[in-house]
């Protein structure tokens, strides 16, 4: 297993290196001079020229990229053009909030998705199945930012108007009540995808001979479905959770914006608006690293669910 983990970790290096190149290139060709942005508005042309020299901005692209990589491996992503704070420090102060939100929404999505998918498969072609599938279809078709606004409208605005207090806060951070709406908003589309994939995967497994055998030997329906069928139906579910984690991270940007959630998504949009490209670059790389690590974790989970995967790497 250790050998497998090591090989997968090594295979991550060129991908992440490529990601740093793409992100650096995009930011390099973005209009706007970092030296001008860092200096006060009354800075002279001479000041700007000196600053460009200090920052190494007169060097060719590849030299600048090399220097960027050298700083990156030392954990230095530069400083914010606007505030002068270290980009790593800024990201690390905001990352826990984003990870909390992403984890909470993933837990909600997996719980709802698995339960709804299993019920839909076991009760195929009943009202339960139809209801679960139609709700899932609505879930994947609904923009999460709209759902967020509708929840605020209902739980904060209408509720306050009717009962004199807000059921759930429309913004803020720190308590479980603050997390409920953002986590639901971010998790809904994923719950819908997981429902669809769980249903189709379970339907396939439930037709297998060993399930018939398990039923024939008198196991309870719960044991047949959860112990025998679900474990074998989990592979595609794990795949979709892993693949869609990137979408979840992307969705967190909008969700954080709506609920004023102090994560890196909100920081990203603030930095884009302020043309603080060092921060933008750092955050995009952070997202790429998190997504790559989650993809790796999913691969490792495969090996746990299906031991045949490991043997390919022996």
């Amino acid at each position, binding site marked *: 297993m250790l050998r497998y983990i090591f090989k997968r970790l090594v295979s991550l290096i*060129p*991908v*992440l290196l*490529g*990601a740093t*190149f*793409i*992100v650096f290139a*995009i*930011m390099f*060709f*973005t*209009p706007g001079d970092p030296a001008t942005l860092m200096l006060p508005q009354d800075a002279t042309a001479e000041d700007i020229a000196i600053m460009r020299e200090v920052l190494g901005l007169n060097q060719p692209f590849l030299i600048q990229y090399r220097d960027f990589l050298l700083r990156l491996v030392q954990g230095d992503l530069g400083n914010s053009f606007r505030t002068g704070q270290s980009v790593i420090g800024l990201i690390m102060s905001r990352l826990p909030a984003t990870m909390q939100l992403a984890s909470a929404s993933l837990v909600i999505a997996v719980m709802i998705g698995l339960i709804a998918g299993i019920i839909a498969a076991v009760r*195929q072609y009943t009202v339960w199945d139809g209801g679960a599938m139609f709700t899932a*279809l*609505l879930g*994947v*078709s*609904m*923009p*999460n*930012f*709209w*759902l967020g*606004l*509708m929840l*605020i*409208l209902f739980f904060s*605005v209408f509720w306050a108007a009717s009962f004199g207090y807000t059921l759930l806060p429309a913004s803020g951070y720190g308590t479980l009540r603050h997390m409920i709406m953002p986590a639901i908003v971010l998790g809904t589309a994923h719950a819908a995808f997981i429902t669809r994939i769980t*249903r*189709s995967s379970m*339907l*396939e497994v439930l037709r297998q001979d060993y399930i018939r055998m398990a039923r024939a030997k008198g196991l309870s329906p719960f044991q047949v479905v959860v112990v025998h069928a679900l474990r074998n139906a989990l592979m595609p579910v794990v795949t979709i959770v892993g693949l869609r984690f*990137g*979408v979840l*991270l*992307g*969705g967190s*940007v*909008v969700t954080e*914006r*709506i609920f004023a959630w102090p994560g890196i998504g909100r920081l*990203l*949009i603030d930095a*884009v*608006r302020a043309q603080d*490209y060092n921060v*933008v670059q750092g955050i*995009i790389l952070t*997202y*790429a690293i998190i*997504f*790559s690590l989650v*993809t790796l974790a999913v691969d490792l989970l495969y090996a746990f669910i299906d031991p045949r995967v490991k043997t390919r790497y022996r």
Partner: protein
Amino acid sequence: MAIHVRNQTTGESMPAALISVGAGRKQRTRLEETWRRFRKNKWAMAGMVLLLFLAVVAIGADFVAPEGLDDQQLGRRFLPPSAEALLGTDHLGRDILSRIIHGSRLSLSIGFITTSIGLLIGGGLGAVAGYYGGSRDQAIMRIMDVILAIPGFIFAVALVTALGPNLTNLMIAVGVNSIPYFARIIRSSVMSVKENEYIEAARALGCSHTWIILRHVIPNSFAPILVQATLRIGDTIIIAAGLSFLGLGAQPPLPEWGAMLSGGRQYLRDAWWMATFPGIAIMFTVLAFNLVGDGLRDALDPRLKN
């Protein structure tokens, strides 16, 4: 005029029709069969009707919409839904229904254009990678892996930041975002198709690689591509609306649905209709594409049903 194919070994040319004898007739039958299955799926048909309705509304927006897309009447600001303005008015007194109707043009165009960018470039790269294999496949797919390592929405944010926030750049960013998605799908589809005997036969007849890819490989990989493209249109509409919601896409006064939602957010407490209806429009449009996409998938390959 008959199309001729040049045999690369002998230099002789032969009628293309000989290479795929009866292909047209067989395809027509398959098309009829697919349509028959599609028609029987009531959800897919509902999606199709909804899409046709949206297309008619988008094309005839100038005639269907009660007012223009930016007709401001400050005397009737924040009018709730009523007979005078069916879906209410916004902070500048503009009719929301009219803006949604005009916006349907934008959202559908964004969906089709961005998906086409992804399909053409990604599809081309995927076809080359899948057909030739080897170092070309490795090079193309590793680049795709690198792009896919950055979450799609974040990558689009980065591109829009670099290009500048406007509608054209939004479409470029979302289109580029779709390239790896289609490259992967088409590569795997091409890889399975190229193993067929008729590809070997075409090769033996001396057809060029380009001819084989365009005439045999792509048409036979068409079914999964069509399904994924239909589903992708819905996704791109949501991504684009999300970028506009953040102020990184269509700029005022364009009635892009995401931008309208963003504008409505500020007035959520006083004018709930401003944010509610554009969101419903997005949801129904995406739902229509998803219904049709799911229906097409089931109709093209009934084994995938369930």
